[in-house]
């Protein structure tokens, strides 16, 4: 066989395998993520508070309130039974609550970060404490939700018993923070003026563009390896569904978050004002567990590690994960280690 013919054969085989995988993935009709049973215990303006688990003996367990990011959906923490940080925490005796942010309507474009932090998170904290008959709780902030949780813990220190931050940006202008460099010159007033609520699709495009070769192409080609692996293809389909489902962002809150944090790095300069108060991270005196991923392309480890220099607590710990921003939620390795470490850390301080 000539070399050219061999190459043509190789390409043909490659195409056939890819077509086979793609045809299989098209047949997956139910790729809805979110599998752990839960109930809504509070609905407010812009959020729903969910409580996970079916165990009637909730109150004997240790409560954790998860604050997820405003960008993307929290279902990545409960993607499917074997890839669910929430399920793993439930298995370890935690009573899990989660704030599900509702999509902002056009009339919500002026909703501020103060509303998210000092009103909505505070209402959820109070609701959990009421349900549990406690005065303080364990707060677990994920990604941008970690930044919101830090602000909350600094403003309401008496209501937070232990704080866990996961892949959370604190110093928004470290040298390797690509996203931060890209948005430094964006005219946020005009952006918000144009769109009102900022389209999730814009954010999605930027996120995918941070690793354009891998996220735009390779992951689809790697589907070849998942041919005739229905479970693997279903996980892939769920992840795709989650990635594409980016909610719009309330205009004012987006302007404040990107402007004050990404463009002016105000949080670590003690110049970030929420609810007319400066967010002073040194006011966080409760134990803090800071979890970050070493290969995070979205929130570089350097952005999270900075927290050690600003919190005012004596009991500060770090947990590193050898993986990326998404792997820390869903990878097998993360499933085995992260929830167990979180549960151990909390139980040691309960």
């Amino acid at each position, binding site marked *: 066989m000539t070399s050219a013919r061999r190459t043509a054969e190789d390409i043909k085989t490659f195409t056939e395998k890819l077509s086979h995988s793609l045809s299989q993935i098209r047949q997956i009709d139910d790729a809805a993520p979110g599998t752990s049973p839960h109930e809504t215990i509070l609905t407010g303006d812009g959020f729903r508070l969910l409580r996970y688990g079916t165990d009637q003996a909730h109150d004997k367990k240790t409560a954790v309130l998860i604050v997820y990011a405003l960008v993307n959906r929290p279902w990545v923490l409960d993607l499917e039974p074997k890839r669910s940080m929430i399920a793993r925490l439930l298995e370890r005796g935690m009573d899990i609550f989660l704030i599900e942010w509702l999509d902002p309507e056009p009339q919500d474009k002026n909703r501020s970060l103060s509303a998210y932090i000092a009103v909505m998170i505070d209402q959820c904290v109070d609701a959990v404490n009421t349900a549990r008959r406690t005065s303080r709780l364990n707060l677990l902030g994920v990604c941008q939700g970690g930044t919101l949780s830090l602000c909350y813990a600094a403003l309401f220190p008496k209501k937070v018993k232990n704080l866990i931050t996961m892949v959370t940006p604190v110093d928004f202008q470290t040298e390797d923070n690509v996203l931060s460099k890209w948005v430094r010159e964006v005219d946020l007033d005009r952006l918000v003026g144009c769109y009102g609520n900022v389209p999730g699709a814009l954010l999605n495009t930027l996120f995918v563009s*941070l690793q354009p070769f891998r996220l735009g192409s390779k992951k689809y080609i790697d589907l070849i390896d998942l041919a005739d692996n229905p479970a693997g293809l279903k996980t892939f389909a769920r992840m795709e569904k989650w990635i594409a489902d980016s909610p719009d962002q309330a205009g004012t809150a987006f302007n404040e978050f990107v402007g004050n944090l990404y463009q002016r790095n105000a949080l670590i300069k003690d110049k970030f004002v929420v609810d007319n108060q400066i967010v002073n991270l040194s006011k966080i005196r409760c134990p803090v567990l800071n979890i970050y991923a070493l290969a995070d392309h979205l929130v570089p480890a350097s952005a999270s590690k900075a927290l050690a220099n600003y919190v005012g607590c004596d009991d500060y710990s770090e947990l590193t994960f050898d993986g990326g921003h998404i792997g820390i939620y869903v990878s097998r390795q993360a499933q085995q280690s992260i929830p167990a470490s979180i549960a151990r850390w909390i139980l040691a301080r309960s």
Partner: protein
Amino acid sequence: MPHDPTEQYQDFLFELEKYLRQMNDAGRDMPAFSQLPGWLEWLKADNDPSGDITSTKKLESLKAQFRDDPAKSEAASRYWHAFQALQVHWIDISSKSWDVARVQSIETSSATNIRQFYDDWIEAGEALFRERAVTKAYADQVGEWINAQVDLNLAFGMGEVPVCVDPRDLKAALTEAEAREAQLRSELEALKSRQKSKSARATSQKKAPSKAGQSTKTKASSKSEIALKKSRPKS
């Protein structure tokens, strides 16, 4: 001349990437927002030299289209320039990554396996992109691309041009002022509560002078606690 399989790969990958992009675009709701340029621009340029993507033909036709509306014409021109500037980066990144993958495939004889070649190309591309993405030139260009797209939308009547767009330094000053105001407010609150407890203590001292020693002791103990916390070594 020996056969170079990567020439066949390039044609194949062009079709493949076009397909993947179509598949992605079909599944996404992207109102009034276009995608960032990527390596497809390079594949396009290489596969269709007659439709040189960096040519000014499209720009000229845009200008002609909005001749009677300077705002639209200017916004379209700005967007076209911003998009082109990113395309130039991408043509460079893609072509360099292709060269790296080709050299590597010759060295490791992996060019006869398209999957291996593809993986090498992706790895080279991602590495080159990482280097480029953090440079000020590229970052500013992404910012300009977003700003230009917003301007284009505004020129075509989407949303509202903000009444007042604060300049960057004014915004920074505003952040500082807000922080200062919040700081002053919290100091005022602290002073007020100190004053309140002072007067309360004075009243209680008048009523029960024997308790003064106890109050001093409590204060001293809380001070030493603060000193201990501040001495915590930072990692």
